[in-house]
């Protein structure tokens, strides 16, 4: 190999080494380390650790709260796809079809505002919206004659998880709408004009022009929302801490509870590994599915 080529390669490698070191130390090393922890029982007080192999993983399969947490994450993912992908796309298309650019701008801003609020603050805000006696939701239901449906939304096992998910959709919906709106704005207006000249109505325009041309963004949003659904933590901690009776536990909070409440850090690490595997698999699958969907015009 010529010296010049070797020099160029070495120089290239030198440029990427700092990034590789940072990635290795702060991303990949903790992942491997976490897997190491998941094969231990660890008494944080004495510092003693005992190797137990895959025992923590076996325990996971017999743990009903692990499975209900997993189911809650799935609910989160499904409802996020419905609201934050399908609903946001529909809303973005509606907003972008408004003829007045000023109104379109105003509406985009209005929908985006909840996303500017941190999840912790939004969780606290909705905690008070759902409060059984003083909460806004029950008062509104009362005011419109539906008081009989009022209840302790976060206090009942049957409603708590969906109340948390609803808050999360409210918070994330506007952000997705904005991203879809940007994707729609990138579609050349000639395509819409041609469709109109051919007598295509707004519904068909949406399905035959908008939808195919934003599929790249749709794929990305699916990946982001589904991966996000398996990393949920803040909103659950703020609103319910996983209760009542573990009904709102998600994998993230169940991990936390096992580590910080039950002192079982090995088991918590095993849950962490499972979360990583799930999100990695989802990301790889979605990247693979959407790899040939790049739209160019």
């Amino acid at each position: 190999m010529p010296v010049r080529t070797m020099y160029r390669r070495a120089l290239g490698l030198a440029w990427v080494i700092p990034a590789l070191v940072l990635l290795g130390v702060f991303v990949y090393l903790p992942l491997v380390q976490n897997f190491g922890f998941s094969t231990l029982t660890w008494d944080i007080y004495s510092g003693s650790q005992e190797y137990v192999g895959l025992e923590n993983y076996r325990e996971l399969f017999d743990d009903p709260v692990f499975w209900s947490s997993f189911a809650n994450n799935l609910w989160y993912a499904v409802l996020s796809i419905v609201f934050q992908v399908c609903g946001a796309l529909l809303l973005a298309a509606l907003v972008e079809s408004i003829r007045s650019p000023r109104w379109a701008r105003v509406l985009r801003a209005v929908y985006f505002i909840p996303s500017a609020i941190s999840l912790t603050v939004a969780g606290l805000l909705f905690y008070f919206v759902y409060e059984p006696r003083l909460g806004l939701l029950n008062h509104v239901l009362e005011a419109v004659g539906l008081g009989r449906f009022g209840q302790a939304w976060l206090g009942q096992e049957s409603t708590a998880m969906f109340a948390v998910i609803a808050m999360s959709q409210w918070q994330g919906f506007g952000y997705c709408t904005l991203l879809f709106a940007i994707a729609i704005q990138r579609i050349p207006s000639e395509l819409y004009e041609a469709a109109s000249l051919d007598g295509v109505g707004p519904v068909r325009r949406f399905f035959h022009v908008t939808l195919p041309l934003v599929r790249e963004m749709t794929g990305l949003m699916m990946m982001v929302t589904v991966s996000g659904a398996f990393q949920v933590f803040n909103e659950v901690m703020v609103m319910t801490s996983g209760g009542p009776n573990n009904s709102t536990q998600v994998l993230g909070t169940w991990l936390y509870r096992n580590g910080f409440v039950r002192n079982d850090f090995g088991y918590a690490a095993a849950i962490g590994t499972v979360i990583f595997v799930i999100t990695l698999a989802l990301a790889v699958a979605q990247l693979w599915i959407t790899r040939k969907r790049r739209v160019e015009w």
Partner: protein
Amino acid sequence: MRARALTRYAALFGASVLALTGCFAGPAKAPAADVTAKPEFSGTLSILTKFAGDPLSPYFEDLAAAYERKHPGVKVELIQETDQSIKDKTKTLTASDALPDLYFTWTGNWAENFVRGGRASDLTEVIGPDTEWGRTFSKASLSAFAHDGRYYGIPLYNNGKFMGYNKAAFAEAGVGVPTTFEELVDSCPHLRKAGYEPVAFGNKDGWPALHYLQQLFAYHVPREIREADHHPGTATLDDAGYLTALKQFKTLVSACTDTRGGTNGVLYTSAQEAFSRGKAAMYYQEILEFDNATAAGAGAGPRALKPQNLVVRPLPVPEGAKGDPEAIEGAPEGYLVNARSPRAALAVDFMKFVTERRNAKTLSSPPYGQPSTVVGAVTPETSSRAVFQGIETVNKAPRLAGWLDMVTAPEVADAWLAGGEALISGGMSPEEVLESVRRASKSAK
């Protein structure tokens, strides 16, 4: 070629895991701290307190400033946390082997973990009951932190759980302050008719339910059995008193709270506020909350709770209770000295300063209202009537029943937490709750 590469990567991954596992084989043991040594008044003394937020945070801040003035070479670094956040903070610091020189502790299993793990200094030589410093504390509060005859904790304040009654609400409803659990439940419809929520109760965090349960368990289950049941190794949890207590708790929630099955959706502080503002007639609270309960209601209208209307008594004993009717739920709270701290002697000296009579009196007085464990610090002059009365009752009680989530193993405590919530929401029957706790206790063996 590909298979060989795969094998190579798998081997590399496996080796990394093993190497890392080996790397994290526990913290290096530092030499045990010498708490009897003459303190060196220099350097930074780190302290983890549970006094974050108003009105408590200035207490340690003021003392730290005063100590720094007294010893100019010392800098006191405070990490102040709340009741909820200190649990996570302490465990994170423990796991990362970064505990401060002095740190907060509850009694029971919580403190035992630090003692067992060699993270708490043996303070017997400096705070044992026969030492000069030890004699300044009440004996019961010192022994609450004793293990195998050795003394590890510095008790700072005592605490107990009491039912607070708004005397004015009861007068308005035309019923007397209840003397039995049954009378309490019977008074609820009358109080409701008079426009009050009978019992303010918020169980969002789960542990408030455990406070009711532990007191009822103490009333219904003989002490020896209850204490054996706290330890998974000896627990059977088959005394009939447990079921009776669980059923009575469910009755109380259903008959005396406005939120009933939805009580899990109410914050503990919201309930306290309802009591302070005179919207609720009863509220089960810690001594530490008494002053806050009356202060928070100030200016909240004519119905707001006034100090002279606050009556505090232990939760009324149910008729025919076969356990320990004189037991009161409560425990002192205090501080441990990090066994690996190079400033252990300085930490002891700082705590001697904190527990000097005048500082102990300040702690017991409004706005702090934390009844000091220092003998003679809580008097009718230094503390509010309610705090004085509460602490007198705790001091006279023949036995204290520690907090349920602190006296038992974490898995069992967690099962009680989930069970209490399920009992309230109707997700589980009392029998199912007890069975879930038995399972948790069995798996924690």
